[in-house]
């Protein structure tokens, strides 16, 4: 048990190391050095070389990577040459917006998907199931960059229920904050609702055929009690794995909606940094996102043991 936990964490660390190496290596392939960006196009080659030497950019790649790694472990991801702001600080400033969007989208997706899956699984192949499946297939084909504009058109422009763009902090009132965040969150959530529904429906249908469900029913428990208290938990394993894996798509979705709704999150930081060729910031954000993603997926892997006692026993045996 302890051994599997340790080896899983070790594997995660190895992946994180590989990822950071790949990103730093990729960024060093970029044409044009940091010095050229700082000094502008009219700089003399001598000035560029001097600044490169000062920044330590003339040393071999491996040495630079180890330096970067040492700094990163202490929480220093470098300083943007364009804004003179430490990258870690910029990330921390933007993080709450992205976190809120991702959390809201995940919650909406899980809540709706559980309800839809339960509705489907009550009578597989029945009219409700078939109707829900069609809705789910439609949602699966609506990426954020389509859902966003269409939702804006319908709910913000035609119906006027939500603000078109912009972000209001929680300090300015929770209601205003949620109203501004709802449309972007739903835009990302649609595709996840479909993905979650498919997986959970499949597992629920399987679980409902098992003996312990029959036993619970025979004891006279109500169908909804059996569904929610007996069948849902053992059926949620694949759902939780998928939620972890799909977090990557969710983050990609936040990039899209932050650019569309003009929200000051991590994705917007990444987009603007790419356009202004601020590679230090790009590198910091990409490594940060990838590391968080790996950590979450490792945690999801380990969390099976908490949810399903059968896995605990299987690991011990």
């Amino acid at each position, binding site marked *: 048990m302890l051994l599997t936990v340790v080896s899983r964490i070790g594997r995660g660390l190895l992946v994180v190391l590989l990822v950071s190496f790949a*990103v730093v290596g990729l*960024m060093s392939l970029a044409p044009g050095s940091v010095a050229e960006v700082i000094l502008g196009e009219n700089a003399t080659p001598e000035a560029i070389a001097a600044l490169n030497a000062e920044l330590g950019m003339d040393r071999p790649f491996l040495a630079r990577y180890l330096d970067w790694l040492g700094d990163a472990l202490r929480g220093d991801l470098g300083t943007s040459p364009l804004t003179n702001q430490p990258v870690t600080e910029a990330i921390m400033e933007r993080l709450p917006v992205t976190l809120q969007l991702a959390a809201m989208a995940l919650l909406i997706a899980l809540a709706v998907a559980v309800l839809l899956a339960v509705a489907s699984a009550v009578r597989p192949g029945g009219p409700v199931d078939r109707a829900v499946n069609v809705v789910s*297939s439609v949602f699966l*084909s609506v*990426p954020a960059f389509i859902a966003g504009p269409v939702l*804006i058109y319908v709910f913000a422009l035609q119906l006027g229920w939500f603000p078109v763009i912009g972000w209001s902090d929680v300090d300015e009132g929770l209601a205003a904050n949620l109203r501004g965040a709802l449309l972007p969150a739903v835009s990302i959530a649609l595709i996840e609702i479909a993905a979650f529904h498919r997986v959970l429906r499949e597992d629920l249908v399987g679980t409902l055929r098992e003996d312990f469900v029959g036993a619970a029913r025979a004891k006279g428990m109500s169908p909804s009690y059996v569904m929610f208290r007996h069948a849902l938990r053992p059926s949620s394993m694949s759902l939780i794995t998928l939620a972890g894996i799909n977090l*990557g798509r969710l983050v990609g979705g936040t990039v899209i909606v932050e650019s569309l709704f003009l929200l000051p999150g991590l994705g917007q930081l990444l987009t603007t940094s*790419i356009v202004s060729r601020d590679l230090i910031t790009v590198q910091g954000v990409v490594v940060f996102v*990838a590391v968080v993603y790996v950590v979450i997926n490792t945690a999801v892997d380990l969390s099976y043991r908490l949810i399903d006692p059968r896995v605990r026993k299987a690991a011990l045996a």
Partner: protein
Amino acid sequence: MTQSEAVAGRVAPPVVPRVRRPRSVLVFAAYAWLAAVIGMALLASLLPLAPYITAVGVPHQGPRWGSLELSMGTDYLGRSILSRAVHGARVSLVVGTVASLIGVVVGGLLGMLAGYLGGRLDAVVRLLTDAMLAFPPLILLMALSSVLTPSMGTLLLGLTLLVIPTFVRLARANTLAWSAREFVLAARNMGAGHRAILLKEILPNVLPTLAAYLPVVMAAMIVAEGSLSFLGLGIPPPTPSWGGMIEDGKDAITDSPHMVLMPALIIFLTVFSLNLAGDHLRRRFDRTLQD
């Protein structure tokens, strides 16, 4: 008659009813739409449409009956949206097809080798795919586009990198399942080498599964390309792409919603059709789903 049969020792072949597969109108419509999009993209230059860079009318004009070019309206420069959508289909389809095909070949090969040979190669391949899957897809594409200048080539490179790990995992899982089967053991006992077993015994069984996942992966590629173009990091203008058309129109959505809704509808229908086709093929060919 019956006597002669009995004498010959023959038994009438058992009557096995044909397996009836449910036919869905929706799946048929999906294949029809895909055929139409592919046909339009192939014949784009032969269709009676203005080139995608010339203005055919007033900018921001809504859809209008009677004229093919104006049937979807015009964009902010007065260019025909239908013409741009048809030419944009080329970008989306080429990107989707080429990236997924390279992904199938490279990823499938790596996955089969890793699953069949196991050992150290398997460990390395698994670690590398884990590392590649550790990037959220769009973030990986954005990181690449920050280093390389956006063009068809770099877009293809990024998307191919994105699909390879998926196919590695799929091929590896299926190879593991098939390698344990009796006919592989029989082939080995008859003296077949690794290469013969991989090519003659395992590949024919793994291939249908990989192929069945192609449409879904193509849909994901079209979405990825659209997302990147939407952020202004895809194919540079004036070449039209579906995601770029939505990006062009999104600031004018208040007055001319057709500029966004038309390309959005086309992308939706295409992705929807590919997903339906993928589900249809997977139900028929994926062994890991059936067993």
